[in-house]
């Protein structure tokens, strides 16, 4: 099954309960909403892959574009929203302080995400990822849903608070040519 897939970071600042007068994540929010709107377009049934906190973010983003998450557990779906992000230890001011392994880990993770290659995603050291406070629990399910037909589009990539965020979408109509 080749379906639309998207990745957003599980940033609590995106939630209405934590709204500020000036949105500290305005650009990220815009990218997330664009991605989720694309994902849930035309009434798609969206499977959310996330930890409990990430699920809150996904549920909110879907509701903000007028969509709803499928309940997990075998229900049919035709799009997948994965909630995850890179390390939260990328700088002295980062939530988890600086861990010098964080930049390399995120670089590898970013390359794997852009490639959409299940094998590359499978090679990631998830134990290290957890040590680096990355949110990587959904990557295995992400890999399961990607194929060589998908074309990745990076809609947002930054680490404004020492946490690495990506907003990525994988379009099944990308018809990426097979590697030589």
């Amino acid at each position: 099954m080749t379906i639309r897939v998207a990745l957003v970071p599980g940033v609590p600042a995106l939630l209405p309960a934590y709204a500020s007068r000036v949105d500290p994540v305005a650009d990220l929010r815009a990218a997330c909403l664009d991605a989720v709107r694309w994902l849930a377009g035309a009434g798609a049934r969206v499977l959310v892959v996330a930890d409990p906190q990430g699920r809150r973010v996904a549920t909110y983003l879907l509701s903000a574009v007028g969509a709803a998450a499928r309940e997990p557990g075998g229900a049919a779906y035709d799009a997948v929203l994965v909630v995850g992000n890179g390390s939260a230890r990328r700088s002295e001011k980062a939530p988890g302080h600086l861990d010098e392994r964080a930049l390399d880990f995120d670089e590898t993770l970013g390359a794997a995400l852009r490639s959409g290659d299940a094998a590359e995603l499978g090679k990631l050291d998830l134990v290290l990822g957890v040590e680096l406070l990355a949110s990587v629990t959904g990557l295995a399910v992400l890999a399961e849903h990607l194929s060589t037909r998908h074309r990745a589009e990076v809609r947002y990539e930054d680490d404004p608070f020492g946490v690495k965020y990506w907003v990525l979408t994988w379009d099944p109509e990308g018809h990426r040519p097979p590697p030589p």
Partner: protein
Amino acid sequence: MTLELGRQSFADEATLMMAIVNRTSDSFYDRGATWAEDKALDRVAEVIEQGAEIVDIGGIKAAPGAEVDAVEEIRRVGSFVARVRSAYPDLVISVDTWRAEVAHAVCAEGADLLNDAWGGADPALVDVAAQHGAAIVCTHTGGVQVRTRPHRIEYDDVVAAAITDTVGYAERAVTAGVDRRAVVIDPAHDFGKNTFHSLELTRRLGEMVATGWPVLVSLSNKDFVGETLDLPVGERLTGTLAATAVCALAGARIFRVHEVVETRQVVDMVASIAGRRPPARAIRGLA
């Protein structure tokens, strides 16, 4: 209820800074610093820069002192209001006066709000407000004569008295034709009150807020702060801000102040603690 102050409307949760601008030579706090008209205009520019939504222009000090008749009061504030209006077309301009004659003159020059610190001493003031579409502040003075200090005034219940008088005044204004959304009540700390009265009004301000009328408080550097902390004028800011915080938590809407920046910070902080105002920009623990 939306608050309508002349040319501006303010939503329910909005808190407003009313900056004091004296056109007097003898007011207790600034001692004539803005007696010269150009100095007063500089003060207006300064408080707008600091974020004040309202300027409150007064031509007579509240305490007893040299007689200032209506002609002199109009001379002090009338043309000045016109200058401020010309320079700041959208600013809410309040004039601190109890005289209908003065009110009529300043409304003709563009004043939006009549701050009657003397509790309706001139019964025709509400008619002037109605005629000009101006807003009005209804204060409690316990029935004392204008420009007098309290002397051995007692109340069975000062808060009940303040509510009865200000709400009565507010209803009288509405009956006279003032827009209900343009009426504000003020317990008037220190006016017809000893320090214990003003402290009790502060402590029980929520009862005034519960009337539903928007509440203005004028606490800035007043004697009840000075007597409570045994501090002279000039050293009362911290005490003023403590009283400000208590009133803000109780739900006061308008704060008549000398120090705009400090008061705004206190009022915003309290509003956020009370859950009425989101933080400016919160990311700690939420990235």
